[in-house]
């Protein structure tokens, strides 16, 4: 689909079988229909985004709010703010934590979702299994966070985790109070909360695989793990990427779970980007600095958007 090869007067509409507004690339009717939506997008999305980017080069705090400070916010963000990014071994800070979330939350949610979906199709009580796994989806993220704050409580009388560990004579541990464990504990909650979503989407896709294909593989000599990795996973790669991208977007914007469970603590060890943005912009009143963090978030989402647009295009071409 390249515009270069088609004459300027014909609209580039894929195969071009249906010709709308014959002979013209531009139509007033189209503008009329798209105009209001475009205007809303411009006012509420494009303008704020540009303004945020602009603000990140300003002081953006008490006194001279719009004093131009050049790259000061940016330099501070990447070199002088260990709460946002400390390069070392191991690295730490909100950006690094978010990387951990992206890697571990997304991959394990997809993996568990796949495994549960595959196993659910082989048991009698499939609907029940899926219902239970999906249940956390129906709970508001904040309630979910509160439930898990109880589970992780260091007091064995309230905390399920420490009650269980107590039986094995371990603990009590404060998993949320320890910088070494807090991120993993939170990621585990995130996985628990999202695996139902992954399961439901992937199980629909897995059900679409013909059972004869799986049987063919079985006769061909594949073991169940080989069938899983070499037949099922590649055959549902598209739904997997849809789920992964959805989770990825969610995780870049992740805020509520952290806010309710740890408020970024202990110290700042469980902060993620969105939490840092909120923390710097509002409680600390450094809007310019917060804006810079917001721009980082936006930039992280750009590759995801490009990927999505490519995929939609590819699908459109296939049809």
């Amino acid at each position: 689909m390249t515009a270069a090869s088609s004459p300027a007067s014909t609209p580039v509409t894929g195969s071009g079988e249906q010709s709308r507004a014959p002979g013209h690339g531009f139509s007033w009717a189209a503008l009329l229909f798209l105009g209001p939506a475009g205007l809303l997008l411009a006012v509420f999305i494009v303008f704020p985004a540009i303004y945020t980017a602009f603000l990140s080069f300003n002081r953006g705090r008490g006194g001279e709010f719009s004093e131009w400070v050049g790259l000061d916010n940016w330099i501070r963000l990447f070199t002088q703010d260990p709460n946002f990014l400390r390069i070392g071994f191991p690295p730490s800070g909100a950006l690094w934590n978010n990387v951990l979330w992206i890697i571990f939350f997304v991959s394990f949610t997809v993996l568990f979702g796949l495994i549960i979906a595959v196993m659910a199709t082989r048991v009698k009580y499939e609907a029940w299994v899926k219902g239970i796994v999906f249940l956390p989806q129906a709970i508001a993220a904040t309630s979910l966070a509160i439930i898990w704050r109880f589970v992780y409580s260091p007091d064995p009388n309230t905390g399920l985790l420490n009650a269980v560990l107590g039986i094995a004579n371990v603990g009590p541990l404060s998993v949320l109070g320890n910088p070494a464990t807090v991120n993993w504990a939170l990621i585990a909650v995130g996985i628990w909360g999202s695996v139902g979503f992954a399961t439901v989407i992937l199980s629909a896709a897995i059900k679409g695989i013909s059972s004869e294909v799986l049987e063919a593989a079985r006769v061909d000599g594949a073991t169940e793990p080989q069938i899983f990795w070499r037949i099922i996973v590649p055959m549902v790669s598209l739904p997997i990427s849809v789920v992964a991208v959805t989770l990825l977007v969610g995780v870049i914007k992740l805020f509520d779970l952290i806010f309710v469970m740890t408020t970024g603590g202990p110290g700042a060890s469980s902060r993620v980007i969105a939490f840092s943005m909120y923390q710097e912009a509002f409680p600390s009143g450094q809007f310019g600095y917060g804006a810079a963090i917001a721009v980082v978030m936006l930039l992280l989402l750009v590759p995801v958007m490009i990927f999505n647009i490519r995929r939609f295009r590819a699908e459109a071409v296939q049809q």
Partner: protein
Amino acid sequence: MATVTFDHLYKRYGDDVVAVNDLNLEIGDGEFICLVGPSGCGKTTALRCAAGLEDISDGQLLIGDRVVNNVAPKDRDIAMVFQSYALYPHMTVYDNLAFGLKLRKLKKDEIDRRVKEGAAILGLEKFLDRKPRALSGGQRQRVALGRAIVREPSVFLMDEPLSNLDAKLRVQTRAEIARLHQRLGTTTIYVTHDQVEAMTMGDRIAVMRDGLLQQIGSPQELYDHPLNLFVAGFIGSPSMNFATATADGKNLVLGGVKLELTGQQAKAADSRTDGANVLIGFRPEHIELANGQESDAVRFPAKVEVVEYLGNEELVHAQTEGNEIVALLPSDKKVVVGDNVQFAIPMEKLHIFDPDTEKALAG
């Protein structure tokens, strides 16, 4: 290579469905056997039991002299061709063929050699880099066959592999499979509901109905000597004519016509009490126009109602003593609608069945 033995094999689903009922079948080494029967008779189930995709409820299944009831499909040394082809859609044709070999940890050049060879046999060389999506039905079918042959298994199991092809391609592929079998000599169980396919391809044919094996034998045995009414009606195209007659000593009476019998047929009639009903059966292609010269034949009058011209032959629909009869006659006999004709059937071509047990009494 190996023999396959079904020994009193049962497959039940729940309490009331018996999909395969006491199947006894010995398939010789290198034999091509066709399993035929109407839809739902248990052919696929029997085949899937042989493949290990279905648990056996009772009885034994042997491949060679090994009981394989509890052996996983991958350890049975079989290859299966599915009705839906069941190709791996995310793999190229090459990888589809190579998959089973890779899993068996064959050396890379050995895999390559076998895949290339299999592709050459089936004319798939041009398509090795394509995904199944980009192939026609016939090409996919050949890939499915190729996937089975590169494995060089000791038994092929095929479940209606041609049913998704158009008539012409089906005939071609049928010949291709027959050639393949001659060349490889691998024991093959071939399931089909098409008796023409079974007749043309099978060394022997096993006819099933409602989970029960009806008869097993060479195509000619089944054609000449069907053991029961079902096999008689199922094998042969156009199918056999049936009519009800009554026993009268060593002869039969069809409506108002006396059929004088000899030999085996006469004995069969004699074994029935006088006046008892029997079913007679005769194939359309065995009906002749009587000229008074036939020595050992039964004769009866018929009135021609419809003539279907087929070129060399004509399908003649006629009425005899209240029975609809189809006869296949040479076109040069010039039979015309409304003609009153005399049909003759050679004695040894006349089948007699017990209407209650449906078993053959003679023929």
